[in-house]
């Protein structure tokens, strides 16, 4: 199973990602964060393999969160959501 953490400040965007990821049987959604700060905390808590992240978010943006997540050992793969 691939553990995935999704990060987006908009609930509609998170719902859509959930639905898209739900179609894959080998993916396990470990958490949903609403901003960069939550993303960093949840990444340490759930140790995901992949973090799917929005760029523009309140509190801490996706770029800064990715920078902090990349310091984890082993670092999860972080990818940005280029929506449309």
């Amino acid at each position, binding site marked *: 199973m691939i553990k995935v953490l999704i990060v987006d*400040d*908009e609930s*509609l*965007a998170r*719902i859509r990602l959930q639905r898209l990821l739900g179609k894959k049987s080998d993916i396990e959604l470990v958490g949903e964060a609403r901003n960069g700060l939550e993303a960093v905390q949840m990444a340490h808590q759930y140790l995901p393999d992949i973090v799917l992240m929005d760029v523009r978010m*309140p*509190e801490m*943006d996706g770029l800064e969160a990715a920078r902090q997540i990349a310091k984890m050992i082993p670092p999860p793969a972080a990818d940005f959501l280029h*929506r*449309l």
Partner: protein
Amino acid sequence: MSDSGKNPTQIGDYFIPDLCRGQGLLGLSAIAALSAVLIALLHSGIGDFDFLWLGKIGLFVCWIALISALFLCRARPYLTNLSPPQVALINYLLVLLAAALCAVAAEYWNSYSASGIWQADPISILNTVLITAIPAGVILRLYYLQQRLYQQQSASLEARLAALQATIRPHFLFNSMNSLATLIRIDADKAERIVENLCDLFRYALKDSKSVTLKEEVDACERYLEIEKMRLDERLEYSWDIKTALSDIRVPPLILQSLIENAVFHGVQPAIQGGSIYIVIYRCGDWLTIDLVNSLPEPTNNHAALSEITSGHQLALDNLRCRLDAFFSGGAELQETIFKNHYHTRILLKPLEG
């Protein structure tokens, strides 16, 4: 332009074309050659056209043109900070100097080859300088007008660009499409509502009219807020308080919408708990007042993000101020203050009835 980079605006004001380069030099050579033909025609007429004389005068005129070009090209870097009249005067004198030098050289050469004596006739030199003075003045004037035309064209282009920028952020469309992509599956009624609102809003924004009634503007803003409310959900709270009739007041389109969009973009969206927007419209004597109050996100430590927010916001406000000035010719004001972590923007205007 050859030496751009250091101070492009001043180079842009400099009206003499770059005579160090092919195109400017070619233009000048063509003018010189045509002048030579003109002089030859005046000298002998078409009946017994003197090609030998044309050759001689052509060579002479080309020398004047090339030496002028050399002077103007060399002088260019030193003159870019001067005003157009100063530039014109100095360049004019340089051309006359070039003509005088050529005349002196030709006089000496003619007298030496004719009689073996080095001497020059001052009257003849003055003659050459005067003959050069007239076309040189005309050509400098032509260069000046050409530059003015170019400046006017780029100014009108910039104005049109500014008008184009007074539209809804494209990001808003992308956000709405993303909301739609989710809602289509989970809440078809809401999805339908978003499509209707988007339709109304873009029909309004693309209408290309110079003015709309404030009622139309407020309706469009309501559509806009409704769409954003579906995206941001409980993170966006807004309310209206309209205390006056709106349908007889004309305003430029999207003035209030751009303020609300700014409030959502900079005030609500970056705040972790979301935020609120409050809009009040009322009359006070001759003046109509539109107040917009929005909450601000908690002060962030991210200075880069903060300065990006303020500069983007300031740009939008400056743009709006220009549009209000142009529309109400001074009878409108845009004010802004920050108090208790709220941003307060006020549009004051003297309505143009009708």
